[in-house]
């Protein structure tokens, strides 16, 4: 095998090797969509973030518009401080409500942004004022049970 044929084969090999990496970057992975560099930051504090994780999706009307970049605990208020990285092409009004939702019963936890009717828009680093915490199933059930108990207890006292 002479040298130019070997060069040709090695060239083809290297090219399809990098092609495979490119395929994994573009078609398999999400390198091009919502990369960490692009976008502006929004902050929101929640009483309870439930099972929210880093790099979870931020959605508006079900469309992914950003990702969770950082989760911290505010040591003074004991609230969770969530930093979102939102794509530059989407602007949100000042009275936007951020809530923590779950897609489906066992699905992923994400942050939902519901825009309001304000004309002023949130800028980089702004804090989202109105938030709604994650629903904790155990609390819901215990609340339901207490309500039931209170109902029947009240009924008993009336008799």
């Amino acid at each position, binding site marked *: *095998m002479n*040298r130019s044929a*070997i*060069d040709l*084969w*090695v060239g*083809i*090999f*290297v090219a*399809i*090797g*990098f*092609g*495979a*990496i490119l*395929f*994994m*970057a573009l*078609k*398999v*992975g*999400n*390198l091009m*969509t919502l990369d960490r560099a692009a976008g502006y930051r929004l902050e929101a504090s929640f009483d309870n973030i439930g099972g929210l*994780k*880093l*790099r979870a999706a931020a959605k508006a009307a079900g469309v992914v518009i950003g990702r969770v970049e950082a989760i911290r605990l505010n040591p003074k208020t004991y609230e969770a401080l969530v930093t979102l990285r939102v794509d530059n092409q989407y602007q949100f009004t000042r009275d936007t409500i951020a809530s923590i939702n779950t897609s489906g019963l066992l699905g992923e936890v994400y942050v939902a942004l519901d825009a309001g009717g304000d004309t002023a828009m949130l800028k980089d680093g702004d804090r989202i004022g109105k938030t709604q915490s994650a629903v904790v199933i155990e609390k819901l059930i215990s609340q339901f049970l207490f309500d039931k108990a209170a109902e029947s207890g009240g009924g008993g006292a009336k008799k």
Partner: protein
Amino acid sequence: MSSDVMFGVAHFLRRIGGAVTGSISRLGFASRFLVAIVWHSPQAFRRIHLTIREIYFAGVLSLVIILMSGLFVGMVLSLQGYETLKRYGADEQLGILVALSLVRELGPVMAGLLFASRAGSAITAEIGLMKTTEQLAAMEMMAVDPLARVIAPRFWGGVVSLPLLAALFSAFGIFGGYLVGVRLIGIDDGAFWGQMKAGVDFWPDVTNGIIKSLVFGVAVSLIAVFEGYDAKPTAEGVSTATTRTVVMSSLAILALDFVMTVFMFRGGAQ
């Protein structure tokens, strides 16, 4: 009688000690060897066609086995994954399962194991036979450094080839998973690719796979050239060295994979 027993025990202990110090000094020699290879690399890169020739023998000639194995592993993964995911009604998630398994683990590890048996053993046998037939000694006589002329090109050829082969393995595996999942079983095409895209990140999933394959490439290539260079210059010595290359490389790949996985994917995204 008792002195016989004492002698036997002493002999036994001496053999254990000899095996331990022997393997430790071999490790030291291998480390020194790696430094020597890196030291002689600039000299080897001045004749780059030597390295390109080794990429041809180690990489291009391994393509068929890597691509076919990748295809079949992906297809099996898809079939087995579907059977399990179906129980939870999560069969749309098959794309994520196939892609993450291949990109994170199976691509680098399987490609590394196949590479060790296909190319690593060949490198060891070649260098070992060169040593046995005193070609390496003849080169030194002619003031040609065998490290720069023979060892370093083979080492770098392996280091370059394995990451590319691992990427191809993963890509073909995902394609095989697509063939079985979408074409054969009939999962929705959009869900397969869409879920995959949502679940696989380039950073860190794909890049960690590439880092793993690069580390395996260094390990397998070093073991292959070292075992060849260190082989006893007999026919039996070369065959022992070739076997050792495959065994040691496989063990090194699996152990390094565990260590790197602990660091890379500890507890998922948090």
